[in-house]
């Protein structure tokens, strides 16, 4: 059995790449999820231990593979398992990709995931659904790792949807709250809209290339001679999937609502991993989009618009998690823009650093929320820096990293993207710089309002205390990563040959350092005081403030459209029913009484004659079209 050989590896000798561990990285969390669901649901401690143990094993194995590759250059291309073959054209494998891109992403997912799993131990303490929560987390981790190692479009799509399902379960985790359930539905449905395009794109590509495998497609694509339009169409359709998953405009509306889930879920799914899946997929298939200028143009602009728009919305939000949610949207926009500018490497670099500091910020926010007994409104906080020192300092590090202050990691990755932008498209560069300024500004606002000034709710303030070690330790771990992740300047090189674009202009870099500092200064001027308020900004911005406060009315617009469409459908159905049941029914009644009298009375409405008439009519029309014409 060849399968067994692939599963357990052929040779454990020196220098051999142990294939076994790739499978173990993937399946250990699934086993944990199954065990928790089937066996240990009652024992909370054991369930948590299983789930955390599973992701730690995955993390250790990922780290080992990463180091083997990074230090010794050992890489292996494992043979895929044939999942199914039908005829000559449908061949689908269950494969494993273990290139630099996948290894880096594995490390990010399992590393950040481990920190968040451990943190959850403290955050979810005493929750009635403790075991169920950890089972869902493990299921989610499995699905996400599945996306990372996928070697073909069908495999990635299956895990893609699995991620959707498990995030649906996790967002709706507190489904006793209707708003949480609605948010889960919204996330599932919105991302599905993007998936429609993705599936179509996959099918279209396959109908020309007759394979789903990434490596085969990459080799085959130049020889296919596809028309430029077709290529752009395929690229744009598959990009639609990423638009849904990575919450880009216009499908971004689900992400802020998804903050209804527990905070560790927000950190894992809506900051570090799931939303990054779209960007990862784009990087994975960069060979498909790079040849099409149209697709690149579309991707870059969508990314830039998302980045700027989300940043402007973030300046007017009051929920500590929502501000971070919009900031996530904005940073994802950066990454997508980088892909669109032809720099998947830069996008991946920013994805990595962003995963660290955004997870850190979310967990920090969670720590604040717990300290204040589930208070999320920033205007009820204040002066917390003395009460929760570890949370404060780590949150500050995350903020500086996000804003792109050197020498923290965010500076390096953002710098790369900005340099790419100024070289390829100055207009996008301007938008990106404006976003960078706004990022520093709204993060400054959050920090000043939450941690400085006078406490605004003394009762909550007096009871506030630092979170336990299981929660602060992950914070410190992530803070350390947020600082150093950019220093390892080989991360971009690791992914591929360096771009021409990276001839740094020191003058430009120096200028870019000033942007976040300026943002912080403005925020400090307005908000660094004992009694900060939005009033001066409101006055200055006028109607613009109302617009951004209401998120450009996207939700209202969609709500209106859905209601309108649904209303129309309902009316059409209603008219249809009425027309047939009543009009035709009653009409038929008078004609067919003698014939159908008894039946009609039995049926109350006599609809049959109406139906029959309609059928006759339908058939006649079809005959006309099919035969006579």
């Amino acid at each position, binding site marked *: 059995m060849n399968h067994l050989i692939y599963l357990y590896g052929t040779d454990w000798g020196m220098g051999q790449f142990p294939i076994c561990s790739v499978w173990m990285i993937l399946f250990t969390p699934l086993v944990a999820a199954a065990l928790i669901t089937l066996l240990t649901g009652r024992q909370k401690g054991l369930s948590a231990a299983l789930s955390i143990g599973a992701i730690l094993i995955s993390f250790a194995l990922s780290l080992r593979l990463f180091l083997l590759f990074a230090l010794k250059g050992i890489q292996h291309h494992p043979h895929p398992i044939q999942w199914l073959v*039908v005829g000559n054209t449908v061949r689908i494998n269950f494969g494993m990709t273990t290139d630099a891109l996948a290894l880096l992403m594995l490390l990010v997912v399992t590393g950040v995931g481990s920190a968040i799993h451990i943190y959850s131990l403290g955050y979810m303490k005493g929750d009635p659904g403790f075991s169920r929560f950890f089972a869902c987390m493990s299921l989610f981790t499995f699905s996400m790792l599945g996306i990372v190692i996928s070697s073909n479009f069908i495999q990635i799509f299956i895990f893609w949807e699995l991620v959707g399902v498990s995030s649906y379960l996790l967002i709706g985790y507190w*489904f006793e709250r209707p708003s949480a359930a609605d948010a889960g539905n919204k996330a599932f449905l919105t991302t599905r809209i993007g998936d*429609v395009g993705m599936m179509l794109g996959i099918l279209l590509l*396959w109908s020309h290339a007759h394979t789903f495998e990434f490596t085969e497609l990459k080799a085959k694509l130049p020889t296919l001679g596809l028309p430029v339009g077709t290529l752009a169409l395929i690229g744009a359709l598959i990009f639609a999937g990423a638009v849904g998953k990575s919450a880009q405009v216009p499908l971004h509306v689900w992400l802020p609502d998804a903050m209804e889930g527990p905070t560790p879920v927000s950190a894992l799914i809506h900051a570090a991993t799931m939303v990054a899946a779209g960007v990862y997929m784009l990087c994975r298939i960069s060979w498909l989009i790079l040849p099409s200028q149209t697709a690149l143009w579309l991707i870059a602009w969508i990314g830039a618009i998302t980045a700027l728009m989300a940043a402007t919305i973030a300046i007017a939000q009051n929920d500590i998690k929502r501000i971070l949610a919009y900031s996530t949207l904005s940073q994802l926009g950066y990454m997508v823009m980088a892909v669109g500018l032809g720099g998947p490497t830069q996008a991946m670099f920013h994805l990595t650093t962003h995963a660290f500091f955004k997870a850190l910020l979310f967990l920090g926010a969670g720590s604040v929320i717990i300290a204040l007994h589930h208070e999320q409104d920033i205007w009820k906080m204040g002066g917390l820096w003395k009460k929760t020192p570890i949370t404060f300092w780590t949150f500050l590090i995350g903020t500086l990293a996000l804003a792109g202050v050197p020498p923290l990691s965010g500076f390096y990755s953002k710098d790369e993207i900005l340099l790419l932008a100024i070289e390829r498209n100055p207009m996008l560069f301007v938008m990106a710089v404006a976003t960078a300024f706004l990022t520093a500004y709204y993060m400054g606002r959050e920090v000043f309002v939450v941690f400085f000034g006078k406490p605004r709710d003394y009762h909550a303030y007096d009871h506030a205390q630092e979170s336990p070690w299981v929660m602060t330790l992950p914070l410190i771990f992530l803070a350390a990563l947020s600082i150093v992740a950019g220093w390892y300047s080989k991360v971009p090189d690791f992914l591929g040959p360096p771009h021409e674009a990276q001839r740094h202009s020191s003058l430009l870099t120096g200028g870019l350092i000033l942007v976040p500092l300026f943002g912080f200064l403005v925020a400090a001027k307005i908000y660094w005081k004992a009694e900060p308020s939005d009033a001066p900004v409101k006055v200055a911005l006028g109607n613009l403030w109302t617009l951004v406060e209401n998120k450009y009315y996207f939700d209202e617009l969609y709500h209106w459209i859905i209601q309108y469409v649904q209303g129309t459908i309902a009316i059409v159905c209603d008219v249809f029913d009425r027309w047939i049941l009543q009009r035709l029914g009653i009409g038929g009644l008078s004609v067919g009484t003698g014939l159908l009298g008894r039946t009609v009375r039995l049926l109350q409405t006599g609809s049959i004659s109406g139906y029959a008439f309609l059928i006759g009519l*339908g058939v006649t029309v079809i005959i006309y079209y099919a035969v006579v014409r």
Partner: protein
Amino acid sequence: MTPVPYFDVLKGLGAEVILTLTALVALTLDLASVRRAEMSVRSRTIGTTAVVGLLASTLPLWQQLNGPRMVLLGGTLAMDDLIIFFKLVIVALAVITVLISMDFDVGRHVGEYYAVLLFGAVGMMLLISAEELITIFVALELTSVSLYILTAFHKGELRSQEAAVKYFMFGAISSAFLLFGLSYVFGVTGATGLQAIQDAVKNTGGLAMSPLLATGLLFTIVGFGFKVAVVPFHLWAPDAYEGAPTPVTAYIATGSKVASFFILLKVLFIGFAGLQGSAFWGNFASGWTMLLAVTATLSMILGNCAAIVQHNVKRLLAYSSIAQAGYIFIGLVAATKMGANSVLFYIIVYALANLGAFGVVAALSSRAGGDEMQNFDGMARRAPFLSLLMLIFVLSLAGIPPLGGFFGKFYLFASAVQRDAQHFGLLWLVILGIVMSAVSLYYYLILLKHIYVIDGSDQSPIITPTYLNVALGLVALAVVALGVYPKPILELLNNFSYSVIAGLVR
């Protein structure tokens, strides 16, 4: 005239014979021995008899498996591996239906209920092996008449009576259409055997369709359109599904659908092999693919949109079945070997998921006091296991991986994209299918929201019999297995389908 080889016929139709005898035994048993007993005992006894009979009927089928293709009674009935496989599918569906029924109040006439149910199974099995127009018609009538009777089994309920009469009237109309169409086909080609029709069509110049033949083809498709409930011939379905006793609804929606789609596939792919026409965008030509493409479009749009506004679970599932029939037609429109395979695979997945969903509805609605949406509020806490199964069935119907429904739909769409890929000929249909299955997720999630989120007024736990839980659990397992590891079934179908598409050009 050669003497009829009765012994061979008996051997070839062993399964049908055993089922007919079992039906008679069930009737006698009920009449003779257990009529006085308690209702639940009666139902269990007769039901068990039916299950035993169904299982026994597979014995001759297993025996004939891997044998050569056999033709009975001058080519009216055939036996080959594909046919045997689908007869086994019918048996499996019937067994689950019987198990669901045993837990359901079917009224006083228990013996008659199971006997008629078994007669229906006989009809479906004959339908699957039929390869000649008159036999097809007779088998279809045997199936349909059994189902009309079963629909009316809620004797006390007006809804059930109304549904039965509607179903019967529409069935009669559709039979008339079908018979009319078949008579034209016979008139033009002078043949009733499917293969003979194909030869005759080819000899008369193939694609040059005479108006008479076109009319025959059209009426035949209209007739079958009723049976599989596609728009605009669907009007009976929501009422019949809602009114019939739920196990019967499950039977109509699964067993009879599988048999009808199977025979439709054969009639189109063998009998009318030369008359496909074209449904390629901008290049339409008269023929059955064009007709099916139009009905598929209407079914997917109307079925999915109408399902959104339903408040009754059975009605919702009825509209969802109409939409599903639309997806299945996409595979038929592809008119290739891959298309045939995808249709065969999908009807199995569809039947299992639908049977499971109706089974859960039957088990829960009889205990929760109704089959309206709000009767299912908070069901996840009252019956967690069956709710979980419902989640699996519904997500499979919505086409979410890794469940069977996802792969089935993917296969259908892939087969259509594959056809005329260079000019995107059938892409319009596939786009519609994918978009509409995204829409379908909306109403499936509404149903799940009632089950999982909204709190019900009644919080008492619901206990269902173990045999039913096990049976439905197995169905769910099959739905998952068909999605995670479809390879064995696909390879099986791929090897089989030679007999179906033998006549097709491609």
